[in-house]
Protein backbone atom coordinates (compact mmCIF):
# COMPACT_ATOMS: atom_id res chain seq x y z
CA UNK A 1 0.00 0.00 0.00
CA UNK A 2 1.34 3.37 -0.87
CA UNK A 3 1.81 5.92 1.85
CA UNK A 4 -0.06 8.62 0.04
CA UNK A 5 -3.15 6.47 -0.35
CA UNK A 6 -3.55 5.98 3.35
CA UNK A 7 -2.03 9.00 5.01
CA UNK A 8 -3.90 12.23 4.77
CA UNK A 9 -2.03 13.75 1.87
CA UNK A 10 -1.26 17.46 1.87
CA UNK A 11 -0.29 18.00 5.49
CA UNK A 12 3.38 17.48 6.19
CA UNK A 13 4.00 16.08 9.67
CA UNK A 14 4.30 18.87 12.25
CA UNK A 15 7.69 20.02 13.44
CA UNK A 16 8.40 18.96 16.98
CA UNK A 17 9.64 20.85 19.98
CA UNK A 18 11.20 18.66 22.63
CA UNK A 19 10.91 19.42 26.30
CA UNK A 20 12.40 17.18 28.96
CA UNK A 21 10.35 17.21 32.13
CA UNK A 22 11.99 17.32 35.56
CA UNK A 23 11.00 13.65 35.79
CA UNK A 24 13.31 12.93 32.88
CA UNK A 25 10.73 12.09 30.24
CA UNK A 26 10.98 13.83 26.89
CA UNK A 27 7.73 15.24 25.54
CA UNK A 28 7.35 16.16 21.90
CA UNK A 29 5.16 19.21 21.43
CA UNK A 30 3.99 19.92 17.89
CA UNK A 31 4.92 23.40 16.74
CA UNK A 32 1.93 25.38 15.48
CA UNK A 33 1.72 25.89 11.73
CA UNK A 34 2.34 29.37 10.37
CA UNK A 35 -1.11 29.41 8.75
CA UNK A 36 -2.87 28.60 12.01
CA UNK A 37 -1.03 31.38 13.74
CA UNK A 38 -1.90 33.87 11.05
CA UNK A 39 -5.54 32.77 11.26
CA UNK A 40 -5.56 33.13 15.03
CA UNK A 41 -4.08 36.59 14.74
CA UNK A 42 -6.69 37.61 12.16
CA UNK A 43 -9.50 36.50 14.47
CA UNK A 44 -8.00 38.43 17.38
CA UNK A 45 -7.41 41.50 15.23
CA UNK A 46 -11.01 41.48 14.04
CA UNK A 47 -12.22 41.09 17.62
CA UNK A 48 -10.12 44.04 18.75
CA UNK A 49 -11.37 46.23 15.91
CA UNK A 50 -15.01 45.28 16.49
CA UNK A 51 -14.68 45.90 20.23
CA UNK A 52 -13.06 49.29 19.61
CA UNK A 53 -15.85 50.33 17.26
CA UNK A 54 -18.49 49.11 19.71
CA UNK A 55 -16.90 51.10 22.51
CA UNK A 56 -16.86 54.27 20.45
CA UNK A 57 -20.41 53.83 19.17
CA UNK A 58 -21.72 53.09 22.65
CA UNK A 59 -19.98 56.10 24.13
CA UNK A 60 -21.23 58.21 21.24
CA UNK A 61 -24.83 57.22 21.70
CA UNK A 62 -24.62 57.53 25.48
CA UNK A 63 -23.29 61.08 25.39
CA UNK A 64 -25.29 62.53 22.54
CA UNK A 65 -27.77 64.24 24.84
CA UNK A 66 -25.61 65.12 27.80
CA UNK A 67 -23.51 68.17 28.49
CA UNK A 68 -20.47 67.17 30.49
CA UNK A 69 -19.11 63.90 29.29
CA UNK A 70 -15.38 64.32 29.29
CA UNK A 71 -14.97 61.71 32.03
CA UNK A 72 -16.67 59.21 29.81
CA UNK A 73 -14.36 60.06 26.92
CA UNK A 74 -11.38 59.75 29.23
CA UNK A 75 -12.45 56.19 29.92
CA UNK A 76 -13.06 55.53 26.24
CA UNK A 77 -9.54 56.65 25.33
CA UNK A 78 -8.16 54.57 28.16
CA UNK A 79 -10.33 51.61 27.17
CA UNK A 80 -9.16 51.69 23.58
CA UNK A 81 -5.57 51.82 24.70
CA UNK A 82 -6.03 48.89 27.08
CA UNK A 83 -7.87 46.93 24.42
CA UNK A 84 -5.20 47.46 21.80
CA UNK A 85 -2.15 47.06 24.00
CA UNK A 86 -3.31 44.56 26.58
CA UNK A 87 -5.76 42.30 24.77
CA UNK A 88 -3.14 39.67 23.99
CA UNK A 89 -1.32 40.14 27.28
CA UNK A 90 -4.50 39.69 29.30
CA UNK A 91 -5.64 36.51 27.60
CA UNK A 92 -2.25 34.88 27.25
CA UNK A 93 -1.24 35.43 30.83
CA UNK A 94 -4.33 33.69 32.11
CA UNK A 95 -4.35 29.94 32.67
CA UNK A 96 -4.11 28.40 29.25
CA UNK A 97 -1.89 30.75 27.26
CA UNK A 98 -4.55 31.27 24.61
CA UNK A 99 -6.31 34.27 23.13
CA UNK A 100 -9.80 33.63 21.71
CA UNK A 101 -8.27 33.34 18.25
CA UNK A 102 -5.67 30.83 19.42
CA UNK A 103 -8.34 28.87 21.24
CA UNK A 104 -10.41 28.66 18.07
CA UNK A 105 -7.45 27.24 16.14
CA UNK A 106 -6.26 25.03 18.97
CA UNK A 107 -2.85 26.56 19.59
CA UNK A 108 -1.27 27.97 22.72
CA UNK A 109 1.93 29.58 23.89
CA UNK A 110 4.38 28.00 26.27
CA UNK A 111 7.78 28.70 27.72
CA UNK A 112 10.41 27.48 25.26
CA UNK A 113 12.23 25.59 28.00
CA UNK A 114 9.01 24.25 29.44
CA UNK A 115 9.00 26.32 32.61
CA UNK A 116 6.33 28.60 33.99
CA UNK A 117 5.14 31.21 31.55
CA UNK A 118 5.91 34.46 33.36
CA UNK A 119 3.88 37.63 32.99
CA UNK A 120 7.01 39.48 31.84
CA UNK A 121 7.48 37.02 28.98
CA UNK A 122 3.90 37.51 27.84
CA UNK A 123 4.28 41.28 28.00
CA UNK A 124 7.50 41.22 26.00
CA UNK A 125 6.23 38.92 23.27
CA UNK A 126 3.24 41.15 22.75
CA UNK A 127 4.94 44.55 23.01
CA UNK A 128 7.25 43.33 20.24
CA UNK A 129 4.24 43.25 17.93
CA UNK A 130 4.89 46.97 17.47
CA UNK A 131 8.00 46.35 15.38
CA UNK A 132 6.53 43.26 13.77
CA UNK A 133 3.14 44.56 12.74
CA UNK A 134 2.61 48.25 13.39
CA UNK A 135 5.88 49.52 11.96
CA UNK A 136 5.70 47.37 8.78
CA UNK A 137 2.07 48.42 8.29
CA UNK A 138 3.00 52.08 8.59
CA UNK A 139 5.89 51.61 6.20
CA UNK A 140 3.49 50.03 3.73
CA UNK A 141 0.64 52.49 4.12
CA UNK A 142 2.37 55.77 4.90
CA UNK A 143 5.99 55.54 3.76
CA UNK A 144 6.40 59.30 3.40
CA UNK A 145 6.20 59.63 7.19
CA UNK A 146 9.39 57.63 7.52
CA UNK A 147 11.54 58.76 4.65
CA UNK A 148 10.43 61.85 2.88
CA UNK A 149 13.95 62.72 1.86
CA UNK A 150 16.01 59.58 2.44
CA UNK A 151 18.14 58.32 -0.45
CA UNK A 152 16.82 55.36 -2.40
CA UNK A 153 19.37 52.85 -1.13
CA UNK A 154 18.40 53.67 2.45
CA UNK A 155 14.74 53.09 1.64
CA UNK A 156 15.62 49.72 0.13
CA UNK A 157 17.61 48.67 3.17
CA UNK A 158 14.80 49.76 5.48
CA UNK A 159 12.27 47.80 3.42
CA UNK A 160 14.39 44.65 3.49
CA UNK A 161 14.87 45.03 7.22
CA UNK A 162 11.14 45.37 7.79
CA UNK A 163 10.46 42.28 5.69
CA UNK A 164 13.01 40.27 7.64
CA UNK A 165 11.53 41.28 10.98
CA UNK A 166 7.93 40.68 9.97
CA UNK A 167 8.70 37.40 8.23
CA UNK A 168 10.86 36.04 11.04
CA UNK A 169 8.60 33.04 11.81
CA UNK A 170 9.16 31.75 8.29
CA UNK A 171 12.93 31.94 8.59
CA UNK A 172 13.45 29.71 11.60
CA UNK A 173 12.70 26.09 12.21
CA UNK A 174 10.65 26.65 15.33
CA UNK A 175 8.41 29.28 13.78
CA UNK A 176 9.35 31.83 16.44
CA UNK A 177 8.51 35.42 15.69
CA UNK A 178 10.59 38.29 17.04
CA UNK A 179 8.44 38.52 20.17
CA UNK A 180 8.84 34.80 20.81
CA UNK A 181 12.60 35.04 20.45
CA UNK A 182 12.93 37.97 22.81
CA UNK A 183 10.51 36.55 25.37
CA UNK A 184 11.63 32.93 25.10
CA UNK A 185 8.20 31.59 24.23
CA UNK A 186 6.97 29.23 21.54
CA UNK A 187 3.56 28.58 20.01
CA UNK A 188 2.56 24.92 20.00
CA UNK A 189 -0.51 22.90 19.15
CA UNK A 190 -2.63 22.68 22.28
CA UNK A 191 -2.56 18.98 23.10
CA UNK A 192 -5.96 17.30 23.02
CA UNK A 193 -5.81 13.81 24.45
CA UNK A 194 -8.20 11.46 22.70
CA UNK A 195 -8.36 7.79 23.56
CA UNK A 196 -10.37 5.58 21.24
CA UNK A 197 -11.19 1.90 21.35
CA UNK A 198 -8.32 -0.43 20.69
CA UNK A 199 -8.82 -1.50 17.08
CA UNK A 200 -7.37 -4.93 17.06
CA UNK A 201 -6.21 -5.65 20.54
CA UNK A 202 -9.57 -6.03 22.28
CA UNK A 203 -8.71 -9.41 23.72
CA UNK A 204 -11.45 -11.69 22.46
CA UNK A 205 -12.86 -13.61 25.39
CA UNK A 206 -14.44 -16.18 23.14
CA UNK A 207 -12.91 -16.11 19.74
CA UNK A 208 -15.66 -15.63 17.23
CA UNK A 209 -15.95 -18.03 14.37
CA UNK A 210 -14.92 -15.56 11.74
CA UNK A 211 -11.86 -14.41 13.69
CA UNK A 212 -10.53 -17.89 14.03
CA UNK A 213 -10.73 -18.19 10.28
CA UNK A 214 -7.69 -15.97 10.10
CA UNK A 215 -4.51 -17.32 11.54
CA UNK A 216 -1.14 -16.20 10.33
CA UNK A 217 2.22 -17.86 10.38
CA UNK A 218 5.39 -16.16 11.59
CA UNK A 219 6.75 -15.83 8.11
CA UNK A 220 3.58 -14.07 7.04
CA UNK A 221 3.77 -11.65 9.95
CA UNK A 222 7.45 -10.90 9.52
CA UNK A 223 6.78 -9.18 6.21
CA UNK A 224 5.70 -5.90 7.81
CA UNK A 225 7.03 -3.57 10.49
CA UNK A 226 5.79 -0.97 12.98
CA UNK A 227 5.25 1.70 10.35
CA UNK A 228 2.89 -0.45 8.29
CA UNK A 229 1.12 -1.56 11.46
CA UNK A 230 0.33 2.00 12.43
CA UNK A 231 -0.76 2.96 8.96
CA UNK A 232 -3.12 0.01 9.05
CA UNK A 233 -4.38 1.19 12.45
CA UNK A 234 -5.14 4.60 10.99
CA UNK A 235 -6.98 2.99 8.12
CA UNK A 236 -9.08 0.79 10.38
CA UNK A 237 -9.81 3.66 12.73
CA UNK A 238 -10.81 6.11 10.10
CA UNK A 239 -14.56 6.50 10.45
CA UNK A 240 -15.00 7.47 6.84
CA UNK A 241 -13.58 4.17 5.70
CA UNK A 242 -16.72 2.39 6.89
CA UNK A 243 -18.85 4.17 4.35
CA UNK A 244 -17.11 5.73 1.43
CA UNK A 245 -13.90 3.85 1.06
CA UNK A 246 -14.84 0.26 1.55
CA UNK A 247 -13.03 -0.18 -1.68
CA UNK A 248 -9.88 1.14 -0.09
CA UNK A 249 -10.11 -1.48 2.65
CA UNK A 250 -10.67 -4.17 0.05
CA UNK A 251 -7.75 -2.96 -2.01
CA UNK A 252 -5.45 -2.93 1.01
CA UNK A 253 -6.65 -6.39 2.11
CA UNK A 254 -6.02 -7.71 -1.37
CA UNK A 255 -2.54 -6.24 -1.48
CA UNK A 256 -1.61 -7.65 1.92
CA UNK A 257 -3.03 -11.04 1.04
CA UNK A 258 -0.89 -11.22 -2.07
CA UNK A 259 2.21 -9.96 -0.32
CA UNK A 260 2.07 -12.50 2.48
CA UNK A 261 0.95 -15.29 0.19
CA UNK A 262 -2.49 -15.75 1.69
CA UNK A 263 -4.28 -18.68 0.08
CA UNK A 264 -7.46 -17.64 -1.69
CA UNK A 265 -8.95 -14.25 -2.34
CA UNK A 266 -10.38 -11.89 0.27
CA UNK A 267 -13.95 -11.14 -0.57
CA UNK A 268 -15.17 -7.60 -0.47
CA UNK A 269 -17.20 -7.92 2.73
CA UNK A 270 -14.45 -9.87 4.45
CA UNK A 271 -11.90 -7.10 4.12
CA UNK A 272 -12.48 -5.50 7.52
CA UNK A 273 -12.48 -8.70 9.61
CA UNK A 274 -9.42 -9.89 7.74
CA UNK A 275 -7.52 -6.65 8.29
CA UNK A 276 -8.55 -6.47 11.95
CA UNK A 277 -7.32 -9.97 12.58
CA UNK A 278 -4.13 -9.27 10.69
CA UNK A 279 -3.59 -6.09 12.67
CA UNK A 280 -3.98 -7.89 16.00
CA UNK A 281 -1.69 -10.70 15.00
CA UNK A 282 0.93 -8.37 13.59
CA UNK A 283 0.88 -6.19 16.66
CA UNK A 284 1.21 -9.17 18.96
CA UNK A 285 4.17 -10.41 16.94
CA UNK A 286 5.94 -7.05 16.76
CA UNK A 287 5.37 -6.20 20.40
CA UNK A 288 6.61 -9.60 21.44
CA UNK A 289 9.78 -9.03 19.48
CA UNK A 290 10.11 -5.56 21.01
CA UNK A 291 10.21 -7.16 24.44
CA UNK A 292 13.28 -8.99 23.27
CA UNK A 293 14.83 -5.78 22.10
CA UNK A 294 14.15 -6.20 18.37
CA UNK A 295 12.12 -3.40 16.93
CA UNK A 296 11.23 -3.74 13.28
CA UNK A 297 10.67 -0.21 12.03
CA UNK A 298 9.12 -0.97 8.63
CA UNK A 299 8.99 -3.55 5.90
CA UNK A 300 12.38 -2.56 4.55
CA UNK A 301 14.33 -3.05 7.76
CA UNK A 302 16.22 -6.31 8.20
CA UNK A 303 15.67 -8.71 11.03
Amino acid at each position, binding site marked *: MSRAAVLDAGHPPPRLHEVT*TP*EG*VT*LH*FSIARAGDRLGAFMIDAVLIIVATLLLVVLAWSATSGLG*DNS*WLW*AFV*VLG*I*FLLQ*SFYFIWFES*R*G*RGMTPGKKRLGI*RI*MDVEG*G*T*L*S*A*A*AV*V*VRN*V*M*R*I*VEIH*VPLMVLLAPQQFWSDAPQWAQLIACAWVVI*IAGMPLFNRKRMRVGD*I*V*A*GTIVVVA*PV*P*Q*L*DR*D*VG*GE*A*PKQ*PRAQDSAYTFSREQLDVYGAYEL*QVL*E*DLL*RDKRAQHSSRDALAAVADKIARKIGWPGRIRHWDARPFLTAFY*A*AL*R*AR*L*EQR*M*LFGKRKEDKFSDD
Partner: protein
Amino acid sequence: MPAIRLKSYEFRREREKAWRRLEVLVQRVEKSGLRSLRESELYELPQLYRQALSSLSVARSISLDKNVLTYLEALSQRAYLAVYGVRRHLREVLLEFFTDAFPTALRRHGRHLLVAGLVLLLGTMAGYLLTMADTDRFYAFVSGDYASGRNPMSSTESLRDALYSDHDETSGLAAFASHLFTHNARVGMLCFALGFLLGIPVFLLLLINGLLLGAFTALYAGRGLGSEFLAWVAPHGVTEILAILLCSAAGLAIAQSLIFPGRLTRMQNLARRGREAGVLVLGAVLMFLAAGLIEGFFRQLVHSQAVRWSLAAASLAFWIWYPFACGRPRERTS
Protein backbone atom coordinates in the same frame (compact mmCIF):
# COMPACT_ATOMS: atom_id res chain seq x y z
CA MET B 1 -1.96 -18.41 16.36
CA PRO B 2 -4.04 -18.91 19.48
CA ALA B 3 -6.33 -16.33 21.00
CA ILE B 4 -4.32 -13.16 21.23
CA ARG B 5 -3.76 -11.42 24.55
CA LEU B 6 -1.67 -8.41 23.90
CA LYS B 7 0.59 -7.17 26.64
CA SER B 8 -0.02 -3.63 25.50
CA TYR B 9 -3.76 -4.19 25.74
CA GLU B 10 -3.46 -5.42 29.31
CA PHE B 11 -1.21 -2.49 30.04
CA ARG B 12 -3.86 -0.11 28.86
CA ARG B 13 -6.69 -1.89 30.66
CA GLU B 14 -4.91 -1.67 34.01
CA ARG B 15 -4.07 2.02 33.79
CA GLU B 16 -6.81 3.57 31.76
CA LYS B 17 -8.85 4.59 34.80
CA ALA B 18 -6.01 6.66 36.22
CA TRP B 19 -5.47 8.35 32.85
CA ARG B 20 -9.11 9.29 32.58
CA ARG B 21 -9.06 10.66 36.11
CA LEU B 22 -6.04 12.80 35.31
CA GLU B 23 -7.80 14.07 32.21
CA VAL B 24 -10.73 15.27 34.32
CA LEU B 25 -8.51 16.97 36.90
CA VAL B 26 -6.37 18.71 34.29
CA GLN B 27 -9.43 19.97 32.50
CA ARG B 28 -10.72 21.49 35.71
CA VAL B 29 -7.40 23.13 36.53
CA GLU B 30 -7.28 24.66 33.05
CA LYS B 31 -10.80 25.91 33.27
CA SER B 32 -11.01 27.32 36.77
CA GLY B 33 -7.53 27.14 38.24
CA LEU B 34 -5.91 25.12 40.96
CA ARG B 35 -8.28 26.59 43.50
CA SER B 36 -11.13 24.56 42.13
CA LEU B 37 -9.48 21.36 43.35
CA ARG B 38 -10.25 19.92 46.76
CA GLU B 39 -7.40 19.11 49.08
CA SER B 40 -7.41 15.42 48.30
CA GLU B 41 -7.41 16.19 44.60
CA LEU B 42 -4.43 18.47 45.01
CA TYR B 43 -2.49 15.49 46.30
CA GLU B 44 -3.84 13.34 43.53
CA LEU B 45 -2.83 15.58 40.63
CA PRO B 46 0.97 15.29 40.79
CA GLN B 47 0.74 11.57 41.52
CA LEU B 48 -1.49 10.94 38.55
CA TYR B 49 0.76 13.15 36.44
CA ARG B 50 3.81 11.09 37.32
CA GLN B 51 1.89 7.91 36.65
CA ALA B 52 0.94 9.18 33.21
CA LEU B 53 4.56 10.06 32.49
CA SER B 54 5.75 6.62 33.52
CA SER B 55 2.95 5.06 31.47
CA LEU B 56 4.24 7.06 28.52
CA SER B 57 7.79 5.81 28.91
CA VAL B 58 6.62 2.22 29.31
CA ALA B 59 4.26 2.51 26.35
CA ARG B 60 7.07 3.81 24.20
CA SER B 61 9.03 0.67 24.83
CA ILE B 62 6.32 -1.99 24.77
CA SER B 63 3.36 -0.74 22.77
CA LEU B 64 2.84 -0.19 19.09
CA ASP B 65 -0.70 1.07 19.53
CA LYS B 66 -0.41 4.48 17.92
CA ASN B 67 -3.64 5.68 19.46
CA VAL B 68 -2.47 4.96 23.01
CA LEU B 69 0.94 6.47 22.32
CA THR B 70 -0.43 9.74 20.95
CA TYR B 71 -3.04 9.85 23.70
CA LEU B 72 -0.44 9.47 26.43
CA GLU B 73 1.82 11.99 24.80
CA ALA B 74 -0.96 14.57 24.65
CA LEU B 75 -2.19 13.78 28.14
CA SER B 76 1.31 14.09 29.58
CA GLN B 77 1.89 17.37 27.76
CA ARG B 78 -1.32 18.81 29.00
CA ALA B 79 -0.79 17.64 32.55
CA TYR B 80 2.78 18.90 32.41
CA LEU B 81 1.65 22.37 31.42
CA ALA B 82 -1.03 22.29 34.10
CA VAL B 83 1.37 21.15 36.82
CA TYR B 84 4.43 23.23 35.98
CA GLY B 85 2.87 26.21 34.28
CA VAL B 86 0.87 27.08 37.39
CA ARG B 87 0.30 30.73 38.01
CA ARG B 88 -0.06 32.22 41.42
CA HIS B 89 -2.72 34.52 42.66
CA LEU B 90 -2.73 37.99 41.15
CA ARG B 91 -2.17 39.62 44.53
CA GLU B 92 1.03 37.67 45.06
CA VAL B 93 2.25 38.46 41.58
CA LEU B 94 1.66 42.18 42.07
CA LEU B 95 3.34 42.20 45.47
CA GLU B 96 6.34 40.39 44.06
CA PHE B 97 6.49 42.77 41.13
CA PHE B 98 6.68 45.90 43.24
CA THR B 99 8.84 44.63 46.07
CA ASP B 100 11.22 42.48 44.11
CA ALA B 101 11.09 42.09 40.34
CA PHE B 102 10.83 45.76 39.36
CA PRO B 103 13.45 47.23 41.71
CA THR B 104 15.81 44.36 40.88
CA ALA B 105 15.37 44.98 37.18
CA LEU B 106 16.02 48.69 37.77
CA ARG B 107 19.28 47.95 39.52
CA ARG B 108 20.39 45.42 36.92
CA HIS B 109 19.92 47.91 34.12
CA GLY B 110 21.85 50.72 35.80
CA ARG B 111 24.38 50.97 33.01
CA HIS B 112 21.78 50.96 30.28
CA LEU B 113 19.87 53.66 32.11
CA LEU B 114 23.04 55.70 32.38
CA VAL B 115 23.74 55.41 28.65
CA ALA B 116 20.16 56.32 27.75
CA GLY B 117 20.29 59.23 30.19
CA LEU B 118 23.54 60.52 28.73
CA VAL B 119 22.18 60.41 25.19
CA LEU B 120 19.06 62.28 26.28
CA LEU B 121 21.19 64.81 28.14
CA LEU B 122 23.40 65.23 25.10
CA GLY B 123 20.34 65.95 22.98
CA THR B 124 18.98 68.39 25.52
CA MET B 125 22.25 70.27 25.83
CA ALA B 126 22.65 70.44 22.06
CA GLY B 127 19.05 71.61 21.63
CA TYR B 128 19.49 74.21 24.36
CA LEU B 129 22.80 75.62 23.17
CA LEU B 130 21.87 75.62 19.50
CA THR B 131 18.56 77.35 20.11
CA MET B 132 20.13 79.86 22.47
CA ALA B 133 22.66 80.74 19.76
CA ASP B 134 20.02 81.17 17.08
CA THR B 135 16.34 81.14 18.02
CA ASP B 136 15.28 80.23 14.49
CA ARG B 137 16.72 76.76 15.03
CA PHE B 138 13.74 76.15 17.29
CA TYR B 139 11.69 75.34 14.19
CA ALA B 140 14.17 72.65 13.18
CA PHE B 141 13.74 70.79 16.47
CA VAL B 142 10.06 71.25 17.21
CA SER B 143 7.29 70.49 14.76
CA GLY B 144 4.48 73.02 14.40
CA ASP B 145 1.87 70.59 15.74
CA TYR B 146 3.79 69.93 18.89
CA ALA B 147 4.63 73.55 19.60
CA SER B 148 0.95 74.49 19.30
CA GLY B 149 1.62 78.19 19.03
CA ARG B 150 4.57 78.35 21.39
CA ASN B 151 7.48 79.53 19.27
CA PRO B 152 10.03 82.34 19.07
CA MET B 153 7.35 84.59 17.53
CA SER B 154 5.06 84.31 20.56
CA SER B 155 4.97 87.08 23.10
CA THR B 156 6.43 86.48 26.53
CA GLU B 157 2.95 86.90 27.97
CA SER B 158 1.45 84.11 25.92
CA LEU B 159 4.37 81.85 26.74
CA ARG B 160 3.84 82.48 30.41
CA ASP B 161 0.14 81.83 30.09
CA ALA B 162 0.85 78.42 28.60
CA LEU B 163 2.63 77.50 31.84
CA TYR B 164 -0.36 78.44 33.96
CA SER B 165 -3.10 77.47 31.57
CA ASP B 166 -6.22 77.26 33.63
CA HIS B 167 -8.91 74.99 32.39
CA ASP B 168 -12.01 76.69 33.79
CA GLU B 169 -13.84 73.46 34.18
CA THR B 170 -11.82 70.61 35.62
CA SER B 171 -13.86 68.12 33.65
CA GLY B 172 -11.67 68.25 30.56
CA LEU B 173 -8.67 67.20 32.57
CA ALA B 174 -9.59 63.54 32.81
CA ALA B 175 -9.69 63.19 29.05
CA PHE B 176 -6.44 65.15 28.82
CA ALA B 177 -4.71 62.93 31.39
CA SER B 178 -5.87 59.74 29.75
CA HIS B 179 -4.75 61.02 26.36
CA LEU B 180 -1.33 61.88 27.75
CA PHE B 181 -0.95 58.51 29.39
CA THR B 182 -1.90 56.44 26.37
CA HIS B 183 0.26 58.52 24.04
CA ASN B 184 3.32 58.31 26.27
CA ALA B 185 2.89 54.62 26.98
CA ARG B 186 2.71 53.92 23.25
CA VAL B 187 5.90 55.87 22.64
CA GLY B 188 7.60 54.04 25.50
CA MET B 189 6.64 50.62 24.17
CA LEU B 190 7.81 51.64 20.71
CA CYS B 191 11.11 52.69 22.21
CA PHE B 192 11.54 49.26 23.77
CA ALA B 193 10.49 47.32 20.71
CA LEU B 194 12.89 49.30 18.52
CA GLY B 195 15.69 47.87 20.62
CA PHE B 196 15.47 44.79 18.47
CA LEU B 197 16.70 46.83 15.53
CA LEU B 198 20.13 46.83 17.14
CA GLY B 199 19.25 49.84 19.28
CA ILE B 200 20.01 52.50 16.68
CA PRO B 201 16.43 53.86 16.53
CA VAL B 202 16.40 54.03 20.34
CA PHE B 203 19.32 56.44 20.29
CA LEU B 204 17.64 58.46 17.54
CA LEU B 205 14.39 58.73 19.50
CA LEU B 206 16.26 59.79 22.63
CA LEU B 207 18.25 62.40 20.73
CA ILE B 208 15.17 63.82 19.05
CA ASN B 209 13.31 64.10 22.34
CA GLY B 210 16.35 65.66 23.98
CA LEU B 211 16.63 68.28 21.24
CA LEU B 212 12.95 69.07 21.67
CA LEU B 213 13.25 69.51 25.41
CA GLY B 214 16.40 71.59 25.01
CA ALA B 215 14.79 73.84 22.40
CA PHE B 216 11.80 74.54 24.63
CA THR B 217 14.00 75.25 27.63
CA ALA B 218 16.03 77.66 25.54
CA LEU B 219 12.88 79.38 24.30
CA TYR B 220 11.64 80.00 27.82
CA ALA B 221 15.06 80.73 29.30
CA GLY B 222 15.59 83.37 26.64
CA ARG B 223 12.55 85.22 28.03
CA GLY B 224 13.64 84.88 31.64
CA LEU B 225 11.05 82.20 32.32
CA GLY B 226 13.57 79.38 32.73
CA SER B 227 12.85 78.36 36.30
CA GLU B 228 9.10 78.69 35.84
CA PHE B 229 9.31 76.43 32.81
CA LEU B 230 11.26 73.85 34.75
CA ALA B 231 8.75 74.02 37.57
CA TRP B 232 6.10 73.31 34.96
CA VAL B 233 7.93 70.34 33.47
CA ALA B 234 9.56 68.77 36.49
CA PRO B 235 6.61 67.46 38.59
CA HIS B 236 5.56 64.99 35.94
CA GLY B 237 8.76 65.16 33.93
CA VAL B 238 10.84 63.40 36.53
CA THR B 239 8.63 60.33 36.39
CA GLU B 240 7.91 60.56 32.69
CA ILE B 241 11.47 61.06 31.54
CA LEU B 242 12.58 58.27 33.82
CA ALA B 243 9.94 56.01 32.30
CA ILE B 244 11.16 56.89 28.80
CA LEU B 245 14.69 56.13 29.93
CA LEU B 246 13.51 52.80 31.36
CA CYS B 247 11.95 51.79 28.06
CA SER B 248 15.06 52.90 26.20
CA ALA B 249 17.29 51.04 28.63
CA ALA B 250 15.17 47.92 28.10
CA GLY B 251 15.53 48.37 24.35
CA LEU B 252 19.27 48.82 24.71
CA ALA B 253 19.49 45.66 26.81
CA ILE B 254 17.79 43.76 23.98
CA ALA B 255 20.17 45.28 21.46
CA GLN B 256 23.13 44.41 23.63
CA SER B 257 22.18 40.78 24.00
CA LEU B 258 21.63 40.63 20.26
CA ILE B 259 25.02 42.09 19.40
CA PHE B 260 27.06 40.67 22.29
CA PRO B 261 25.45 37.39 23.28
CA GLY B 262 28.18 36.48 25.72
CA ARG B 263 28.51 32.86 26.77
CA LEU B 264 25.02 31.74 25.88
CA THR B 265 23.63 31.43 22.38
CA ARG B 266 21.91 34.49 20.97
CA MET B 267 18.50 32.93 21.40
CA GLN B 268 19.02 31.92 25.02
CA ASN B 269 20.55 35.24 25.89
CA LEU B 270 17.76 37.18 24.23
CA ALA B 271 15.13 35.14 26.03
CA ARG B 272 16.74 35.79 29.39
CA ARG B 273 17.46 39.46 28.94
CA GLY B 274 14.18 40.01 27.15
CA ARG B 275 12.13 38.95 30.15
CA GLU B 276 14.10 41.13 32.53
CA ALA B 277 13.60 44.01 30.15
CA GLY B 278 9.88 43.20 30.00
CA VAL B 279 9.63 43.88 33.73
CA LEU B 280 11.07 47.33 33.09
CA VAL B 281 8.55 48.03 30.35
CA LEU B 282 5.64 46.97 32.53
CA GLY B 283 6.90 49.22 35.32
CA ALA B 284 7.40 52.07 32.87
CA VAL B 285 3.78 51.80 31.70
CA LEU B 286 2.65 52.25 35.30
CA MET B 287 4.98 55.22 35.66
CA PHE B 288 3.49 56.77 32.54
CA LEU B 289 0.09 56.40 34.18
CA ALA B 290 1.30 58.27 37.26
CA ALA B 291 2.99 60.93 35.13
CA GLY B 292 -0.14 61.33 33.03
CA LEU B 293 -2.22 61.94 36.12
CA ILE B 294 0.22 64.51 37.44
CA GLU B 295 0.47 66.22 34.09
CA GLY B 296 -3.25 66.13 33.41
CA PHE B 297 -4.57 67.18 36.81
CA PHE B 298 -1.90 68.50 39.12
CA ARG B 299 -0.12 70.71 36.62
CA GLN B 300 -3.36 72.33 35.51
CA LEU B 301 -4.76 72.84 38.99
CA VAL B 302 -1.73 73.81 41.05
CA HIS B 303 0.07 76.97 40.04
CA SER B 304 2.24 77.56 43.08
CA GLN B 305 5.87 77.19 42.15
CA ALA B 306 6.83 75.96 45.60
CA VAL B 307 4.33 73.10 45.47
CA ARG B 308 5.39 72.19 41.95
CA TRP B 309 9.02 72.08 42.95
CA SER B 310 8.37 70.06 46.06
CA LEU B 311 6.42 67.44 44.16
CA ALA B 312 9.24 67.21 41.65
CA ALA B 313 11.79 66.84 44.43
CA ALA B 314 9.67 64.26 46.20
CA SER B 315 9.24 62.10 43.12
CA LEU B 316 12.93 62.34 42.33
CA ALA B 317 13.78 61.30 45.88
CA PHE B 318 11.35 58.42 45.61
CA TRP B 319 12.87 57.09 42.40
CA ILE B 320 16.35 57.27 43.85
CA TRP B 321 15.29 55.55 47.05
CA TYR B 322 13.04 52.88 45.59
CA PRO B 323 15.42 50.62 43.65
CA PHE B 324 17.88 50.52 46.50
CA ALA B 325 15.38 50.02 49.27
CA CYS B 326 13.37 47.15 47.82
CA GLY B 327 14.24 43.69 46.71
CA ARG B 328 17.84 43.71 47.87
CA PRO B 329 19.12 40.19 48.31
CA ARG B 330 19.74 39.51 51.97
CA GLU B 331 23.40 39.25 52.90
CA ARG B 332 24.17 35.60 53.26
CA THR B 333 25.71 34.72 56.59
CA SER B 334 27.70 31.62 56.14
